[in-house]
């Protein structure tokens, strides 16, 4: 089934024309409403009239996460405050979170693109659908929630936590679809078995999995253990939230809602646009966003775009799996973590050397983060209580900055490997291939 064939199956020429028209309108809008973009364009000697078609997008400046932080909180907002009806925020690396405001129309677009995703997975009005992404400042929960409502299925706003209760609801309410992170899906399968139940006892048939990278092997395992079909959902809060792209029944690449989010692949070094079929950094322009539109936002996600026709009938460009990052960001239990966040916390505590190592692993399908730090010689104490308090103080600070808990390991001074040049701060033992 296709939710909006007019847009999802548009001819490439029509899509080109629509994108061109929307880009022109967007550039004029941000030029007049966002000083940041006006200044950037003036520096480049560029005026909105220079943008005549979507192909002119290469003339436009890029936007980075740093730009979003520098303009905290509302510097990049284009719509007047009275038009903003909701704000989401993502975790910040140096204290400033990224703030994204949505107008009423933005929310309508969001639930439209989410309905397209869910329909592609096979969700219908007859389904009962559990949203097990976190509800709150994170876009996952509410984003998926309104998509399910828009489609007309029954939404169960489970959010995260209490997995046994969740499984009882899945069984008793005959929940047929679920949105969550792939690692949570595996945890759900484990809990199911622990409760003495099997996949035959529940009726899940559709899973929408995203917010962290996953692999074909994980898909096979989740599908086998929960008895459902698992589909990728991609999104990021800077662009909208979940629903930027979605897999169809082919389970082979994610269709981009490119009438709203224009994708490009660039070489992260030269910033040159690359052709379809080449791996590079994914860049999005929000063609219709009113609240906080962005021009050429650098996601730092590395992937490939494809424009071959899809047997499902949709004509949109597809993106392959995320193959990595062009920066050092880690995704741990669905949360973005930068080594620099850990560094900034350690630097505020005089008990520790500025040497540290993040060790990431996946134990029983859940990501774990260990932060190794060296205790400064002068702060070593023969008192175990004081040493444990030092460890706990760091763990507490990390938790409040990272939004996930980390296991702190105190190390001897000089024991963490020093490198010449750029420091190595991450050991990722998760097998994602």
């Amino acid at each position, binding site marked *: 089934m296709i939710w909006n064939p007019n847009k999802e199956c548009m001819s490439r020429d029509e899509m080109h024309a629509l994108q061109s028209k929307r880009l022109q309108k967007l550039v004029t809008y941000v030029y007049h409403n966002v000083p940041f973009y006006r200044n950037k364009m003036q520096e480049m000697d560029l005026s909105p009239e220079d943008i005549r078609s979507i192909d002119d997008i290469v003339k436009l400046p890029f936007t980075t996460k740093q730009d979003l932080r520098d303009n905290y909180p509302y510097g990049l907002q284009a719509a007047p405050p009275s038009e903003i009806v909701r704000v989401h925020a993502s975790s910040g690396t140096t204290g400033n979170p990224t703030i994204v405001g949505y107008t009423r129309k933005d929310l309508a677009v969001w639930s439209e693109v989410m309905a397209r995703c869910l329909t592609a997975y096979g969700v219908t009005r007859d389904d009962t659908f559990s949203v097990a992404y976190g509800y709150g400042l994170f876009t996952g929960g509410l984003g998926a929630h309104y998509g399910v409502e828009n489609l007309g299925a029954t939404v169960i706003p489970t959010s995260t936590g209490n997995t046994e209760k969740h499984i009882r609801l899945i069984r008793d309410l005959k929940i047929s679809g679920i949105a969550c992170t792939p690692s949570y899906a595996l945890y759900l399968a484990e809990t199911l078995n622990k409760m003495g139940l099997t996949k035959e006892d529940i009726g899940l048939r559709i899973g929408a999995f995203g917010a962290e990278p996953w692999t074909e092997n994980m898909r096979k395992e989740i599908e086998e253990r929960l008895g459902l079909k698992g589909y990728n959902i991609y999104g990021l809060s800077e662009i909208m939230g979940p629903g930027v792209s979605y897999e169809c029944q082919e389970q082979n690449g994610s269709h981009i809602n490119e009438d709203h989010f224009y994708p490009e692949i660039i070489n992260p070094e030269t910033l040159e646009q690359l052709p379809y079929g080449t791996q590079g950094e994914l860049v999005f322009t929000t063609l219709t966003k009113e609240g906080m539109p962005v021009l050429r936002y650098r996601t730092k996600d590395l992937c490939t775009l494809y424009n071959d026709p899809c047997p499902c009938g949709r004509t949109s460009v597809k993106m392959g799996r995320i193959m990595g990052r062009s920066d050092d960001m880690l995704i741990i239990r669905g949360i973005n973590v930068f080594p620099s966040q850990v560094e900034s916390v350690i630097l505020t505590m005089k008990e520790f050397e500025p040497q540290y190592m993040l060790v990431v692993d996946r134990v029983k399908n859940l990501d774990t983060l260990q932060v190794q730090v060296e*205790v*400064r*010689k002068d702060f*070593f*104490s*023969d*008192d*175990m209580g004081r*040493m*444990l308090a030092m460890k706990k103080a760091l763990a507490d600070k990390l938790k409040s900055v990272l939004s996930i808990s980390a296991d702190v*390991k*105190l*190390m*001897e*001074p*000089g*024991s963490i490997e020093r490198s010449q040049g750029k420091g190595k701060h991450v050991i990722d033992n998760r097998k994602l291939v």
Partner: protein
Amino acid sequence: MTIKQLSVFLENKTGRINEVTKILGKHGINMHAFSMAESTDFGILRLIVSEVDKAVEVLRSESFAVMLTDVVCISCPNVAGSLSAILETLAEKEIFIEYMYAFAEGDKANVVIRPNDLEKCVQVLKECSCSINSKF
């Protein structure tokens, strides 16, 4: 009336304690007593050694985090109930013991005590005519 205890910070890693004993042995420093306090990822090795200043110097030069703490060392008869009598006196005078370790040999037992209030502890021990060692 107090002696210097050497403490060394150690990661929980096979062979790490031996690194310390090897260095001390190489420099002719004798260990009279030691105890190990451990948590899940690190330990604190507490030692009474023959040449404490030299021990600090050689361990620091090998990048170990070390520190010195004043402790009280007492001797009591190696018979049932002798330590209990001393601890009871300390408790009566409200002296809190952060940690202690001991070993017995022949008819004598040596006990290392780290109290919360060192001065008061020495005072109390003196008053009850306990035998305090000024060196191990």
